[in-house]
């Protein structure tokens, strides 16, 4: 029988009355922030720098908080379509609002839209926090944080959280920036604490990451837990110096390796479309063929783009694994075809 007859609850009754529609489908018509199940957020503050926008969000009561370093999925509506992207909150995980800093990068549909249009009062879709890029508990005695460009946000969250907690161990923060980003002043201010060392390096002036940069901020780096977020080249360089054992990484972009070899054909069976394999990811190739498969982060995190591959072989560009199983679910955004592939989209 229905949920209401099993055990009485006001929500169960409301859902039985609203069936087959969700109660939120009625409430949202009164106010978009009025929800019983869905998590959403209102923008309560907007600050802009020349290259980025910082939003402060007030989530609905379904929000369960986040751990410093995790990411959330944010959905915004642009010309009737919902677009979802992943962003890591930059604030302390003890703060009440959620602070997102979004760099308006060239060709970035969502980031450009938010940079131009975000205003207090706007409602956006929000997901629960996800991700394993988090500080261990109990806290290690030495923490090394390294970031490049817009990769600063999750590690900034870690630094602010450690400071809020009154963390007594040593923290070093090494950040690479081409221009003056939104957090540099705050980083310098936090550096007055006796246990916090901060260095902001400009690649044009100081060169790229190297062991000398590391020794200058954290001569103890061999004993530290290291957290790095930034371009793939930075992460690879850090891995070379500190090794993998105590290294925690968060990838923001796929970098330049997201291509397979061209050749063969891709058949989109449900749409009845066939295209020559250009070597790009299946998501890009589907879009190039005029299809609009559902997707989110475009970097293999959110699983919004999972679809069934009915035949053929694909390679995961993040792991390098190949998959030849028929009728297997794959992530379109990080899979490239190896020869002929058929997809049920």
């Amino acid at each position, binding site marked *: 029988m*229905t949920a209401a007859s099993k055990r009485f609850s006001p929500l169960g009754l409301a859902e039985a009355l609203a069936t087959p529609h969700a109660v939120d489908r009625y409430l949202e*018509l009164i106010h978009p922030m009025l929800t019983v199940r869905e998590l959403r957020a209102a923008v309560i503050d907007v600050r802009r720098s020349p290259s980025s926008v910082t939003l402060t969000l007030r989530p609905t009561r379904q929000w369960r908080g986040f751990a410093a370093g995790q990411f959330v999925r944010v959905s915004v509506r642009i010309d009737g379509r919902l677009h979802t992207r992943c962003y890591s909150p930059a604030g302390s995980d003890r703060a009440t609002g959620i602070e997102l800093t979004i760099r308006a990068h060239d060709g970035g549909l969502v980031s450009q839209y938010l940079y131009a249009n975000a205003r207090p009062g706007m409602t956006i879709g929000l997901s629960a926090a996800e991700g394993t890029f988090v500080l261990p508990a109990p806290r290690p005695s030495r923490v090394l944080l390294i970031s490049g460009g817009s990769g600063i946000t999750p590690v900034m969250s870690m630094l602010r959280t450690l400071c809020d907690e009154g963390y007594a161990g040593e923290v070093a923060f090494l950040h690479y920036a081409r221009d003056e980003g939104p957090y540099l002043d705050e980083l310098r201010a936090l550096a007055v604490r006796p246990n916090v060392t901060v260095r902001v390096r400009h690649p044009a002036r100081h060169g790229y990451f190297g062991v000398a940069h590391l020794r200058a901020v954290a001569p103890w780096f061999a004993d530290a837990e290291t957290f790095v977020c930034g371009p793939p080249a930075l992460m690879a360089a850090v891995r070379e110096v500190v090794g993998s054992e105590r290294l925690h990484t968060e990838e923001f972009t796929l970098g330049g390796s997201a291509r397979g070899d061209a050749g063969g054909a891709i058949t989109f069976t449900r749409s009845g479309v066939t295209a020559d394999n250009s070597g790009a990811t299946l998501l890009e190739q589907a879009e190039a063929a005029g299809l609009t498969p559902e997707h989110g982060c475009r970097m293999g995190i959110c699983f919004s783009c999972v679809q069934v591959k009915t035949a053929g072989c694909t390679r995961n560009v993040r792991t390098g694994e190949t998959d030849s199983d028929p009728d297997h679910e794959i992530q379109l955004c990080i899979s490239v075809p190896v020869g002929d592939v058929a997809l049920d989209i």
Partner: protein
Amino acid sequence: MPTHLSPLQLDELARELDAVRQRVVDDLGEEDRAYIYRVIKAQRGFEVAGRALMYLPPAWILGVGALSISKILDNMEIGHNVMHGQYDWMRDPALNSKMFEWDNVCPSEQWRYSHNYRHHTYTNVLDEDRDIGYGILRMDESQKWNPYYLGNPVYAFALMVFFEWGVMMHDLEFERIVAGERTWGETRGIRRQMWHKGVKQVVKDYVLFPALTGPLFVPTVAGNVIANLVRNVWAYNIIFCGHFPSGTVTFSREEIQNESRGHWYYRQMLGSANITGSKLFHILSGNLSHQIEHHLFPDLPARRYPQIAPEIRAICEKYGLPYNTGRLSKQVGSVVAKIFRLALPGRTSPEPAPSSVSPRELAAAA
């Protein structure tokens, strides 16, 4: 039905229609989203008003009216169209074809199979499109007559009254079970889905909402029964006018062997019929009054059908194809006449509709 159009002409027809479709697809955006949300807001408004007015005995009839309109909007302009994927491009989980459920006892998953796939792919192909007679009626002369069909008008009337239940049971394919082509056991999975959906719908309309009106339990049950009945009668009539008015053409399995895209379009145009009416009428019909446009482009948002209708009509004229359209009374009249006529044996050809030319005549003239 051999076509008078050559394969080259059919390819050209496909190109022209594809171009119409592409132009609309390229133009989809905020306006279409705003439109469907306006309809949803109106539907929810009618629904809440209808439920609330049940507490006010003098306004009972208004409540029934509001609830009827709510169910009609939910099933037709919203449910049917959302489940076609007309709004999937919005990527809004609330309006996603695979996730949507409608205020109807038929589970949406089964509807998508029998309607979106079977009916829209094999439109008017005998023995493939189960919407020809829904397995219980004789709606085409090529269906072999037997004495069972003497009851054709009675079955049709019963189907109209219990339409949502008929739609729900459509997938059981009773006639194939009777013919021994399918076992009762095979329907177990879909029967479970029907049970789950049906129970929720029945509990909502006939137990919970009536109970909430306390001493008015019986009038509320009666009001909800009538609202469902009004929706049944309305949906049945609109849907029967889609493919059964005189002038619509059916096809055989042989004719669609290795069918080209152009021939598929051709078949949709010949097999469908429109209904003329006001803007409000079109919305209440879910724009199925533009059945021809809907069958050509089932995944375009329905509000676009009236916009492209003049162009489709011009294309029909250019290729000498009928564009079957008429008032609701005329289309319903011709369907009712067919239901009665086909109750009796014989293959008497129906009168061609005045506004359309039969392809047979065109073929003869070519």
